[in-house]
């Protein structure tokens, strides 16, 4: 079966900007809250299990034939790397779909490792902000990208609340967005777990149906409340993500943005998009009315003036 873009339901048939503008709002509004595909897969990342071995990074590199790393994957000095005056740790790039960073648990002093990659949102901001529909949320849960239609505006990078997409800026002819695709083509659609999950020695990454993972996550918290922070990061953040996290230290101490909204980013544009049909419907009549009112009176007075002369 072909991948379904959920927005594909609303096929726009009329050309012309006004028709398009109306349809775009219809899409934003006609949609009831989207809870994600029922059989969406996901990954639960348990930070308490991650030992920072970077095997997932190596597996990802191999799976996707990414460029040779500058530093071997078994070299842990990368955890000491900081950028921009220490304000930024390593992040995903045009040669890495995923990276693991080390944080220090301020209370216990023990290191905490956190893997980052695309979280595969239920209602992704990259997808909804893309004006050429280069992104697709597959029914399996992956958010995949089609470089063949991408114009390179990088709106998705601006929109991504997790700052995941990277761009191959140094390519003159084929620049494109580079990000984790949940191993969609090579594994996920064949029913296999992503390479990183399979490689993880600790099963810090648990692969399964998103709804089952939510159950598992809450069960882990319930059965060991002293160990875990009582929150499943990604269950509701920005409308829910396919990749979710459990942690033993407060999420904001290990690089998570805990200020994110709990509804899709797309919702933020609705107050404006609601205004679009009003403008299209009301403006022409209103301004033509203004025009008639303001010019008819004037023409008459102008005539009178000229007559008087």
């Amino acid at each position, binding site marked *: 079966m072909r991948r379904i873009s959920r*927005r594909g339901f*609303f096929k*726009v048939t009329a050309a012309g*900007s006004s028709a398009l*503008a109306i*349809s*775009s709002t219809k*899409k934003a509004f006609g949609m009831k809250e989207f809870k994600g595909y029922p059989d969406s897969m996901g990954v639960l990342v348990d930070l308490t299990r991650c030992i920072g071995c970077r095997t997932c990074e190596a597996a990802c590199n191999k799976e996707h034939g990414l460029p040779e790393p500058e530093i071997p994957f078994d070299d842990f000095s990368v955890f000491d790397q900081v950028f*921009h*005056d220490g*304000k*930024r740790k390593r992040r995903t790039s045009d040669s890495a779909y995923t990276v693991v960073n080390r944080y220090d648990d301020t209370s216990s002093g023990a290191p905490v490792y956190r893997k980052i990659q695309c979280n595969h949102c239920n209602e992704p*901001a990259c997808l*909804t*902000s*893309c*004006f*050429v*529909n*280069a992104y697709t949320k597959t029914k399996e849960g992956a958010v995949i990208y089609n470089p063949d*239609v*991408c*114009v390179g*505006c*990088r*709106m998705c*990078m*601006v*929109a991504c*609340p997790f*700052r995941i*997409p990277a*761009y*191959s*800026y*140094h*390519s*003159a002819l084929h620049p*494109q967005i580079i990000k984790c695709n949940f191993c969609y083509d090579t594994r996920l659609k064949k029913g296999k777990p992503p390479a990183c999950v399979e490689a993880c020695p600790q099963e810090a990454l648990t692969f399964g149906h998103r709804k089952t993972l939510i159950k598992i996550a809450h069960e882990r918290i319930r059965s060991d409340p002293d160990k875990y922070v009582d929150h499943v990061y990604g269950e509701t953040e920005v409308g829910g993500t396919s990749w979710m996290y459990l942690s033993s230290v407060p999420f904001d101490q290990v690089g998570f*943005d805990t200020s994110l*909204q709990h509804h899709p*980013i797309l919702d*933020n*544009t609705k*107050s*404006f*998009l609601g*205004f*679009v049909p009003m*403008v*299209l419907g009301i*403006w*022409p009549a209103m*301004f*033509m009315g*203004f*025009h008639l009112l*303001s*010019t008819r009176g*004037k023409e008459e007075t102008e005539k009178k003036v000229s007559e008087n002369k």
Partner: protein
Amino acid sequence: MNHLIVNKGYQPIDSLNNPDNGQKWSLWRKLLLGLSPSDYFRQVLRNPFNWVLGLIFAIGLPVIIYRYATGLGGVMHASYDYPWGLFLGFGLFCMVPLSASGFLLGTTVELFGHKKFKPILRLALLNGLLGYFFAVVYLLVDLGCPWRLYYPMFVSWGTAAVLFLVGWHVATYLSVQIMEVSEAFFEWVNWPTAKKFIHSGTIGLTVAGIILSTLHQGALGTLLCYAPGKVHPLWYSQEFLWIFYLCSSVFAGICMVIAVSTVVEKTMSWRCGSEFLDNLGPITIGLAKGATMALVTYLVIKIIGIIHDNEWAYLTTGWGTWFMLEIGLGVILPIILFSIGIRKNSVGLVRFTAFLTILGLMMNRLNTALITFNWDLYQEIPHPLEAVITVTIFALFITVYRFILYRLPILYTWKTVSEEELVSIADLDSTQTQQAAVLVDTAGKESLGPA
């Protein structure tokens, strides 16, 4: 040009027929402003501003070629945290509001019938057209695959995206503006049928202009609603960002017309018709009134925005100081200065304030799109080559702007008379020439100083 006018009694072409012999001007002569090729190029070389432009192009054009040869990474920091730089921050976010002039003056003159502003209408329309056109040029530099610029129109539709709306609206509005300005072009190339055709659709084009402008000016602000948390809360507002952008584009467009008309009057008065020059003072004051109203409205909704999102605490931070500086210099001070200028009927003060307001607006747009972006992460200063390209394209904008103003009947009225009439009004023509010569003489002396 002033040199030629003063020393050689040169008269710029402003009519269909050569007043000396009654012959129609050839296109070539029109392009050369009625000068011989050698005179024209001497004139070009004499102007020091051309040397400045030449220097900018000498540096900038190779950099632009370098950008296409090596990819964006060659001229940008290639930052994943700051995907957008000056090309969009300045080229799109600043150029578009500053080009709102077209629809504003179109509405005022054509729709509301305020004929008082008619002499500046074409300048406002041209300013709008070129602003949008060069916003697209900036886009062509910034896009990773500029050769796919038409994709959102014809290849793949991301209809739910705000950027889709912006793209379509800028494209259609650009066509509308080309049609609006083409009236002047058809006069110049002497194609009255086409002019008449376009003219008959003026009201339709104007209304289309209002609709498209209201929507995409606002949409530009809504683009940043995709990045809540990345844009500083003082500049971000989910409910109001589009109203901020729409409202500020009103005074931005007006102030840009005041600014451009000022530059035009100071540097190319020889090209301005008497209708334009005589009415510019009252028009400027009239425009200032409109701008002040928009500024006051903007200030009020900005304050409502802060109250609505309860952002008072942010005002005491460093970002808050920066925010208040932007509002103080770019909104409150202009309101005060405009009010004084209008009351005292001081065109000079109004013009100064217009420039100030433009700076304030640019500060606002750069703040939302660039400076306060990633406010809690780290700040990034754009790559020097990015600035070089931005300046180069702006210089190109000025060059094209000037090229068109020199030729098309934007600032002056195109005179068309039948050949029979030409003979009969020969006397009148000579008196007009004398008048114009006097006018040009004074203006020429004024502006010879800096040249």
